[in-house]
């Protein structure tokens, strides 16, 4: 009988798996076998630890040693040194980028210090493909408590009291949503989990499903109990293969244990879950479009009311919640609403998971109490801006959100505060930009996304966003006029006011917020034909400084379009009308004679 004295946890999230965490697991297991320690050391593949910047992560317990950027060939050394000899492998420990201190226990890392993990409680802790480990951590106890000790209405009251609001972006009170669905009488009702995570840069839902799929299944069952549904559907994008696999395993195990199916825990309550796959359209994250897509129709939104709670999937009352919202439910039931509503800010309770991306040192997944400031998130947890550059803006809420600047850094993050400063929570993507990022190009990038993703039902969104994109393109090419700026603003407001669903209502946000916060940068493009960040290619010119040029001809020989002329040992000249601005000349020049103007 095995008696494990040590556990080795390996991150099995999509990111770390892409960096060969499976091979690390195999090598570790082989090395352990070779030492004859298979009965003493357990190797577990878990969900995401969140510290994706330094993946793959390997954590050794009980001494809580946190190894970063581990490679499959390091496995033997880890076993030989750490496990057998009890010595930490220094070169694989995390080094604090600021004070260069080596930190072995993750709890002392700035990245983890301020985090409170509720939705991510099991990610990076349990093996997501092992139901036993979930049960050992109070798994399905909340469902059991609801079925045995609570009526549907008391469960709803508890969720209402907790103050939990939808984590998919809208921030609608979850308890209220459940109550609406419960009040509608019908022969058949549905619980739907919205796993159609579409914001560029957001990956919290995927990580929860990959790291702790049972928490979502359990919460769906609880929701079904409150509203009298016996069927659950998970709408997930087909481009999340690992999340789909882990969900399938979880559903199968839950059925085997009788935690899904008929007469769950002897209560007479029946509930089962099926999966529905989406093709990855952004608009299908909107609940009515999602429901149409599940019905086999085109993923287009429809007017609310009727709300899904009244007439949703197949015309039956349906409750749709996002993955992260569901992941909070079992904890609220187990620990009580009064525990949960002590965390967070006045109107936004609990925590929020954010996906940090862009020009930030610690790219990864974090969970912080609502009301944490942007400064804490970016500088303390995120470790500040990459390469010591200057912070310029952070885009929250993805393509539907807005950018926030230096002056917003001390704003406590919650649903209402972000709306008040012209952005939104969205699903929790945070893309950090530094001084080298051009805000006009950034707005253009998001518009490109919404133009692509607009379903085309409403004219303002279908045509309007395309026009917005064209104007932005014109400005980045240096052909913009001041009138364009007024047009951008007017058109944006029209699109917001006249679109049916959240996509069109929010798609001009990146334009409006950059106009508000970076008006000068727009002007620089238009009036001075200059891109302050040096990102808009059309506005750049490569110039050779005749003083510095020695006439080595290296640049001319490397120019792909032969636009550099000049004799040997004489200063060269770039023909700017032919130059394609590839930068090859500047890269090759050994005398720093070529610069961008």
């Amino acid at each position: 009988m095995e008696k494990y004295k040590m556990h080795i946890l390996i991150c099995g999230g999509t990111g770390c798996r892409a960096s060969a965490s499976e091979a690390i697991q195999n090598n570790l297991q082989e090395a352990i076998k070779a030492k004859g320690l298979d009965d003493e050391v357990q190797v577990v593949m878990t969900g995401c630890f969140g510290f994706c910047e330094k993946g793959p992560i390997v954590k050794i317990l009980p001494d809580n040693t946190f190894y970063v950027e581990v490679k499959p060939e390091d496995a033997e050394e880890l076993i030989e040194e750490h496990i057998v000899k009890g010595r930490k492998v220094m070169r694989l420990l995390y080094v604090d980028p600021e004070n260069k201190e080596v930190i072995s226990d993750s709890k002392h890392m700035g990245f983890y210090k301020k985090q409170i993990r509720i939705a991510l409680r099991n990610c990076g802790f349990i093996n997501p493909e092992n139901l036993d480990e979930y049960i050992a951590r109070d798994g399905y106890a909340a469902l059991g408590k609801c079925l045995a000790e609570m009526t549907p209405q008391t469960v709803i009251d508890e969720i209402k009291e907790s103050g939990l609001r939808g984590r998919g972006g809208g921030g609608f009170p979850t308890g209220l949503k459940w109550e609406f669905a419960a009040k509608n009488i019908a022969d058949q009702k549905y619980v739907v989990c919205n796993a159609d995570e579409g914001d560029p840069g957001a990956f919290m839902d995927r990580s929860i499903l990959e790291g702790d799929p049972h928490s979502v299944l359990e919460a769906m069952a609880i929701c079904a109990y409150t509203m009298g549904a016996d069927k659950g559907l998970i709408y997930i994008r087909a481009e999340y293969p690992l999340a789909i696999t882990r969900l399938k395993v979880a559903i199968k195990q839950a059925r085997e244990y009788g935690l899904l199916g008929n007469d769950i825990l002897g209560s007479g309550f029946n509930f089962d879950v099926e999966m529905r796959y989406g093709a990855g359209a952004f608009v299908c994250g909107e609940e009515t479009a999602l429901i149409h897509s599940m019905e086999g129709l085109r993923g287009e939104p429809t007017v609310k009311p009727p709300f899904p709670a009244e007439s949703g999937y197949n015309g039956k009352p349906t409750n749709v919640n996002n993955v992260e919202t569901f992941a909070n439910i079992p904890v609220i039931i187990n620990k009580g609403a009064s525990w949960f509503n002590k965390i967070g800010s006045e109107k936004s309770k609990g925590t929020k998971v954010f996906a940090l991306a862009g020009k930030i040192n610690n790219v990864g997944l974090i969970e912080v109490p609502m009301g944490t400031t942007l400064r804490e998130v970016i500088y303390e947890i995120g470790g500040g801006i990459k390469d010591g550059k200057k912070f310029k803006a952070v885009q929250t809420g993805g393509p539907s959100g807005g950018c926030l600047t230096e002056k917003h850094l001390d704003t406590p993050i919650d649903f209402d505060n972000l709306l008040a400063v012209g952005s939104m929570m969205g699903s929790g993507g945070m893309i950090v930009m530094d001084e080298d990022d051009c805000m006009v190009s950034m707005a253009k990038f998001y518009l490109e996304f919404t133009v692509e993703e607009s379903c085309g039902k409403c004219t303002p969104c279908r045509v309007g966003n395309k026009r917005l994109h064209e104007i932005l393109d014109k400005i980045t090419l240096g052909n913009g006029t001041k009138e364009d700026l007024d047009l951008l603003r007017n058109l944006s407001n029209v699109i917001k006011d006249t679109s049916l669903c959240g996509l069109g209502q929010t798609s001009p946000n990146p334009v409006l917020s950059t106009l508000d916060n970076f008006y000068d940068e727009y002007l620089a493009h238009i009036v001075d034909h200059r891109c302050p960040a040096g990102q808009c290619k059309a506005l750049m010119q490569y110039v050779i400084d005749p003083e510095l040029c020695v006439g080595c001809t290296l640049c001319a020989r490397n120019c792909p379009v032969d636009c550099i002329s000049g004799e040997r040992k004489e200063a060269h000249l770039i023909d700017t009308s032919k130059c394609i601005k590839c930068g090859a000349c500047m890269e090759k020049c050994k005398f720093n004679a070529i610069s961008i103007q």
Partner: protein
Amino acid sequence: MAKVKSLADLKRMKDALQSKMDLREKSNDPEGLVQIKVAMATCGIASGAKEVMEFLIEETAKRGIRTVVTQTGCMGYCYAEPTIEVHLPGKEPIVFGDVNIKKADEIIEKYIKNGELVDGIIPVNYKTLD
């Protein structure tokens, strides 16, 4: 796998499964626990550190003391192996030398349970970096 038929069933299952996860739960919060490090270099192992470590793991569990027992490398007191370092919450770590099973038992009963010092303390002449 047998079906979980009732809430009582689920609770029983949880209790049975919890011990398997105990090590992970404890390492989540080591500050609040008794931490014992057993020197497990060649000299330590040769003088019986492995048996002592197993004894400590089993007995602290049996006697209901929440403990994390880890192994560490040579502490340098080769003349007094096996050596263990006991770190009670909120106190300075103390190193005991020549710890056999009998001594380990005494350490659990007297020092860990009641904070009473027992013979065999080696003055600490090192500092551990976190």
